[in-house]
């Protein structure tokens, strides 16, 4: 931990002249006056005031008009008074820490430059996620530097305290708050409403407080604890039962509306790592051991995108379908319990049409005994979790693929808090984390709190909940305070270690809670004390912090309670689905989670993986429903041509709805019978269950910082009081208004080009080189010509001309002054990519990529260097109708670093050129902004700085130099190893050149020192071999590669035939996007392989994308193939 040094505070800002008076104070200025005005300077000795002023006026005049503009500003170098031992200026320090999330603590390693955290990576010592992180952890570092966070503690001076009103706040000292909390005498009248936390210290403080009579309540809008509580309730177990899946052994997985690879389920990073390892293939023989994913879901999630078989069902229908699966399993395994079967038949009535699907799926699950896994979404009712529990029990998956943890929850829920408030049992109320006032608009907060004499709110920013409280206590970011917690599956203790002292006068939750005991302590002392009284965590505190994880044994359930009697108690739910009785599913928002990332620009601007929307949420509806709504309300303007396909039958949204990335979406009112209604724009999304509409919680906040204000739509009124997120009986009414959505990808299909190449495992087993027979280059003249057979190293380092008439410049050692010791290249495995988008934010964090705001995204000016293209493909098209069943393919696209780069040849000023090691370099200081390069780039990866994004807030952009500069707080989080780009220059992916150079330098320095030590010579006469100076494979990880939980990205040296990336590129699955343009990109892709089950009713020999491609490429065959659509 770095203790804040008062002297280091001054280092944090660059010193520029703020005014001439500042300048005049410096000795440098006085000496300058001396030099330029020798006569005037002599006057200054013992002059009168009048004479002095005259001279100074003249100097100031000259200084302002003349020379100062030419002088470089004077910088001060401010070293420490006492240099901290471990800190070498210019070398980043790395500390272990952990991000507290509602799904447990996430172990991280934080990079710190001169005491400022700049980048978060996963902790590689935590084996189950192995150095990768999820997207929110990547973005969380930005929250530390959020100018809108609560910069201290405040007292609310408003007369009326209502969520909607804007209160007037006055700064208050944090010491006074802890002081007054420590003086509370009657703890029996104190209540705490907190969000869920896996902090072992917070939970132990809670139980100690409960012993003293304090009432503890827990509320989460997106309650990941629901399944474990419900399952325990149904089984009659005392403690909650948390399902802890282990995908690494699972050969067959059935996901029941569970987005276990995405953001909606806990532990997505570990799940992705384990699950996607089972899909890694290197040769055709691997296709046999590839795992298979069945997904039954209501919304199209990225998990559904990965699935080999996907069935669209509403969330309410999942229960019946699960029963159907269970029947098939029980029957196949010879269970004769008639009573149980009859009850299950009753539950599954009405699902006869899916009988075949369920039967084949169940058979497939049974093929791999103890190696399958069925997992249900956390929003589903307890009955589904109970049936899933029984299914896994029948399959014998316990201990191999899943375990059950016993977790104890003692906190009360929101309803019991309301009850206590109504009974006037509470005198002091503390809100810790969360945002209950925003999430529960149906609770009459103002009335309930009338009897409470003081309310405190601990939160990172002043929000809706703060409005009804007397005090707002600024919450320290997790990089500013100490804590100790557990991971989601309780197998590891992780320390939260601060990297800097709190930037503002803020407190942590532990500091607040411990002050209730009457003693005011710093979070470090609390953690140290707890650690020392619990000897079983680890042997040594210092070592624990160094590694950042300490293993522990989770209390798993050994004998499983019997589920049969509980199943018999499940009552069949009655529901009706039609266009006038819709099911509404609320999911946590991709951008903001439950609203906590509302003011995080990286998250808001990161496109949703499936819809590709930024800065907004919408009501997603299925194409079937869209068509019905269109018929009912012709003026809705949803589908002007009653189709979303263009004249050629290509899946492309209509131009009337889409123009220049601006999507005009009708705002509708979604009316839910039993409680409330919301209004939000409609967005048609293929892949949804016909009568399920999906929207997200976490947007449309009324009291939020500058980034989040005015974005999205508030849907919290549809949230049930028990945090159930499924409603039924909803209907949609148009309002006649429209909303512009910022969608970054209008095109859904590949328009017949083989951009993403994919096939099925069976076909792959026979045709290893299938990717080579797709796309134009498979039948265009061979670009490598006579050099086709050359090795990858030769191809990369010499750029053979093939059959081209033109010669390329020769950069080989023999023929050039300079030579590249390495040849960098990247390989992206499309089979591994789930579309989680963590790479997009990781790249943004590493490379100082600015946030541009919704208005600029609408103009197509987003700056992400890495984008994830999402393509849909469908089985067959009925005329011009939008398909409902789609397959999803993702493709990460960044600069390809083409060998024969089209951008380089058009730059008039040589600002973008090739370097010796194959990087397509971009010299910002040389760029004049003609944008020819972006125009000529076939991959559309170049980004132009239309404004000074980094200098000004998004609403000040158009004022240019007259606009106000933004808060310098955000500058503290910038990576000092990467240039902050200015207006008017082009930028793009650099393969993280700063990391490459850093590693090269480190290798050379080490080699030099080692050789000197080994030989003992003076340094001139030892010899260094080439191998000593080469960066070992795997040393350099690009930001996107490092974060990727499924290891989809490999980066390395192509001139080394043994490097991982060289081997991947020699795999027959390897192909170049738009290879026929002869750009010879250094980034190539490994074609995707799906693994469908031939017995399934929806089985196709080849993926839909293949058909789309062949339909377009060979239109003559199209009609024929349509007739025998199953045989392509």
């Amino acid at each position: 931990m770095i203790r804040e040094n008062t002297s280091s505070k001054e280092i944090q800002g660059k010193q520029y002249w703020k005014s001439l008076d500042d300048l005049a104070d410096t000795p440098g200025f006085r000496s300058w006056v001396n030099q330029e005005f020798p006569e005037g300077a002599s006057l200054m000795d013992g002059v009168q005031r009048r004479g002095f002023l005259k001279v100074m006026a003249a100097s100031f005049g000259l200084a302002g008009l003349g020379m100062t503009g030419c002088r470089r500003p004077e910088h001060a170098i401010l070293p420490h008074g006492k240099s901290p031992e471990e800190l070498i200026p210019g070398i980043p320090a790395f500390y272990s820490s952990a991000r507290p999330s509602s799904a447990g603590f996430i172990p991280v390693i934080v990079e710190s430059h001169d005491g400022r955290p700049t980048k978060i990576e996963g902790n590689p010592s935590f084996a189950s996620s192995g150095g990768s992180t999820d997207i929110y952890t990547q973005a969380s570092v930005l929250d530390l530097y959020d100018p809108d966070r609560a910069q201290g503690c405040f007292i609310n001076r408003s007369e009326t305290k209502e969520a909607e009103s804007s209160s007037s706040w006055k700064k208050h000292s944090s010491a006074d708050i802890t002081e007054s909390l420590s003086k509370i005498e009657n703890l029996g009248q104190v209540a705490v409403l907190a969000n869920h936390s896996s902090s072992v210290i917070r939970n132990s403080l809670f139980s100690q407080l409960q012993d003293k009579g304090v009432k503890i309540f827990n509320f989460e809008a997106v309650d990941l604890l629901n399944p474990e509580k419900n399952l325990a309730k149904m089984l009659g177990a005392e403690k909650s039962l948390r399902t802890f899946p282990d995908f690494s052994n699972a050969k067959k997985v059935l996901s029941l509306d569970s987005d276990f690879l995405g953001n909606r389920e806990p532990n997505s990073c570990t799940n992705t790592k384990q699950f996607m390892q089972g899909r890694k293939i290197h040769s055709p023989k691997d296709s046999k051991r590839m795992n298979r994913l069945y997904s039954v879901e209501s919304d199209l999630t990225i998990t559904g995108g990965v699935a080999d078989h996907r069935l669209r069902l509403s969330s309410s229908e999942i229960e019946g379908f699960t029963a159907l699966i269970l029947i098939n399993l029980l029957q196949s395994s010879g269970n004769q319990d008639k009573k149980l079967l009859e009850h299950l038949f009753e539950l599954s009535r009405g699902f006869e049409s899916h009988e075949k699907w369920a039967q084949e799926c169940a058979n497939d699950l049974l093929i791999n005994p103890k190696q399958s896994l069925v997992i249900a979404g956390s929003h589903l009712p307890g009955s589904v979790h109970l049936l899933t529990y029984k299914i896994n029990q029948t399959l014998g998956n316990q201990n191999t693929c899943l375990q059950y943890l016993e977790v104890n929850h003692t906190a009360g829920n929101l309803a019991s808090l309301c009850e206590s408030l109504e009974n006037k049992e509470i005198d002091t109320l503390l809100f810790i984390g969360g945002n209950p006032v925003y999430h529960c608009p149906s609770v009459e907060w103002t009335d309930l709190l009338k009897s409470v004499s003081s309310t405190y709110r601990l939160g990172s920013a002043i929000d809706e909940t703060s409005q009804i409280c007397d005090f707002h206590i600024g919450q320290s970011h997790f990089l500013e305070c100490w804590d100790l917690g557990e991971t989601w599956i309780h197998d590891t203790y992780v320390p939260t270690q601060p990297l800097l002292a709190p930037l503002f006068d803020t407190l942590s939750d532990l500091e607040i809670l411990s002050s209730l005991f009457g003693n005011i302590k710093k979070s470090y002392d609390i953690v140290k004390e707890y650690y020392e009284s619990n000897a079983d965590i680890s042997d040594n505190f210092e070592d624990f912090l160094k590694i950042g994880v300490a293993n522990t044994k989770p209390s798993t359930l050994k004998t499983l309670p019997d589920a049969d009697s509980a199943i018999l108690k499940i009552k069949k739910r009655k529901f009706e689905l039609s266009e006038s009785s819709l099911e509404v599913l609320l999911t946590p928002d991709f951008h903001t989670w439950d609203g906590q990332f509302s003011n995080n620009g990286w998250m808001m601007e990161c496109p949703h993986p499936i819809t590709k929307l930024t800065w907004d949420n919408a009501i997603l509806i299925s194409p079937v429903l869209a068509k019905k709504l269109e018929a009912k309300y012709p003026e809705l303007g949803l589908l002007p041509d009653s189709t979303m396909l263009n004249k050629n039958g290509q899946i492309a949204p209509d131009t009337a709805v889409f123009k220049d990335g601006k999507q005009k979406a009708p705002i509708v009112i979604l009316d839910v019978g039993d409680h409330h209604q919301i209004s939000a724009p409609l967005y048609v999304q293929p892949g949804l269950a016909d009568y399920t509409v999906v929207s997200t919680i976490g947007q449309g906040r009324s009291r939020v910082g500058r980034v989040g204000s005015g974005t999205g739509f508030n849907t919290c009124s549809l949230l049930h009081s028990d945090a159930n997120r499924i409603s039924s009986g909803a209907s949609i009414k148009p309002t006649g208004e429209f909303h512009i959505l910022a969608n970054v990808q209008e095109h859904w299909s590949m328009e017949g080009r083989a951009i993403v190449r994919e096939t099925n495992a069976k076909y792959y087993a026979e045709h290893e080189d299938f990717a080579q027979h797709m796309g134009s280059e498979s039948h265009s003249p061979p670009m490598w010509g006579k050099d086709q057979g050359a090795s990858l190293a030769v191809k990369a380092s010499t750029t053979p001309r093939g059959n081209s008439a033109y010669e390329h410049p020769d950069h080989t050692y023999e023929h050039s002054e300079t030579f590249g010791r390495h040849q960098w290249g990247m390989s992206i495995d499309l089979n591994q990519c789930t579309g989680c988008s963590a790479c997009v934010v990781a790249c943004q964090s590493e490379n100082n990529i600015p946030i541009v705001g919704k208005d600029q995204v609408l103009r197509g000016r987003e700056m992400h260097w890495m984008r994830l293209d999402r393509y849909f493909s469908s089985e067959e098209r009925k005329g011009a109708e939008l398909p409902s069943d789609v397959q999803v393919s993702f493709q990460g696209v960044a600069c390809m670093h083409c060998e024969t780069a089209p951008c380089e040849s058009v730059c008039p000023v040589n600002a973008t050129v090739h370097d010796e090691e194959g990087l397509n370099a971009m010299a910002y200081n040389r760029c004049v902004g003609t944008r020819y390069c972006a125009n000529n780039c076939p991959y559309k990866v170049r980004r132009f700085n239309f404004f000074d994004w980094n200098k000004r807030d998004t609403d000040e952009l158009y004022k240019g130099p007259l606009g106000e500069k933004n808060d310098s707080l955000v500058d503290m989080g910038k990576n000092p190893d990467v240039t902050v780009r200015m207006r008017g220059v082009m930028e793009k992916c650099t393969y993280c050149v700063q990391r490459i150079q850093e590693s090269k330098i480190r290798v050379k320095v080490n080699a030099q020192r080692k050789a000197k030590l080994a030989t003992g010579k003076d340094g001139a006469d030892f010899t260094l071999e080439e191998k000593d100076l080469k960066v070992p494979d795997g040393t350099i990880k690009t930001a996107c590669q490092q974060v990727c939980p499924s290891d989809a990205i490999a980066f390395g040296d192509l001139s080394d035939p043994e490097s991982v990336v060289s081997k991947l590129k020699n795999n027959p699955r390897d192909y170049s996007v738009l290879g026929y343009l002869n750009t010879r990109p250094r980034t190539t892709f490994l074609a995707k392989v799906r693994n469908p089950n031939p017995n399934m009713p929806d089985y196709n020999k080849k993926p839909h994308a293949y058909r789309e491609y062949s339909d377009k490429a060979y239109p003559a065959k199209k009609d024929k193939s349509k007739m025998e659509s199953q045989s392509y």
Partner: protein
Amino acid sequence: MRNIFPRWTNTIPVKIIVALSFIGGAVTAGITYYATPKYTRVGYQPTQPVEYNHEFHAGQLGLDCRYCHSGVDTSSHANVPGANTCMSCHKNVKANSPLLEPIRNSYYGEDTNKDGQLSEDEDLNGDGLLSAGPSVPWVRIHKTPDYVYFNHAIHVNRGISCVECHGRIDQMEVVHHAEPLSMSFCLECHRNPEKSLRPMEEVTNLAWHAPHQEGESHDLAQIHAGLQIKENWGVNPPLSCTGCHR
């Protein structure tokens, strides 16, 4: 009709053209001379808050550069030493010199009685930690633009002496900017590293010259030595943008 313009005006256009070309030439020459770092930066010699004498410390006393600039061979950045480095000698030598007041302030900070302990009345900010004082605001002399990422470690370890960019610091009482540090200055050396390469031992020996034989010039001796080092160490300084610009 009489001529409006007298005869002598006929030569005016030619004269103007000639004059303009002279002016243009002069402006171009002026800018190339006066507006380059060679003129604007070389010789820059600001007054420092403490009159540290490099000629005395590095020259006469023979302190190695790395005694104070300790990070230079490991980091991209050649750090200016903290006050503790100065005080390791000046606790005893010239311990009460008024010239060293800013250094002492920075070093002792809250510890006003200089006993190494924090007493209650010394803890001004009340954090219970012994804080150092304000930094000594040394004025930066050598600075590359923000978009240039110069790395000291790689140069110092690969046989490029401090003297190549900073000049004979050991002979400067007050340090001044000795070399232009412009892009052409960098490239000059990156193109012909043999003119500057020297054994690792001699990197901080600013007075070093390659040992030369009878009748051989200094420069020639350097080039011979440099070429051998370049060959032995596999030195290939980057000439493309990515070497310095990121």
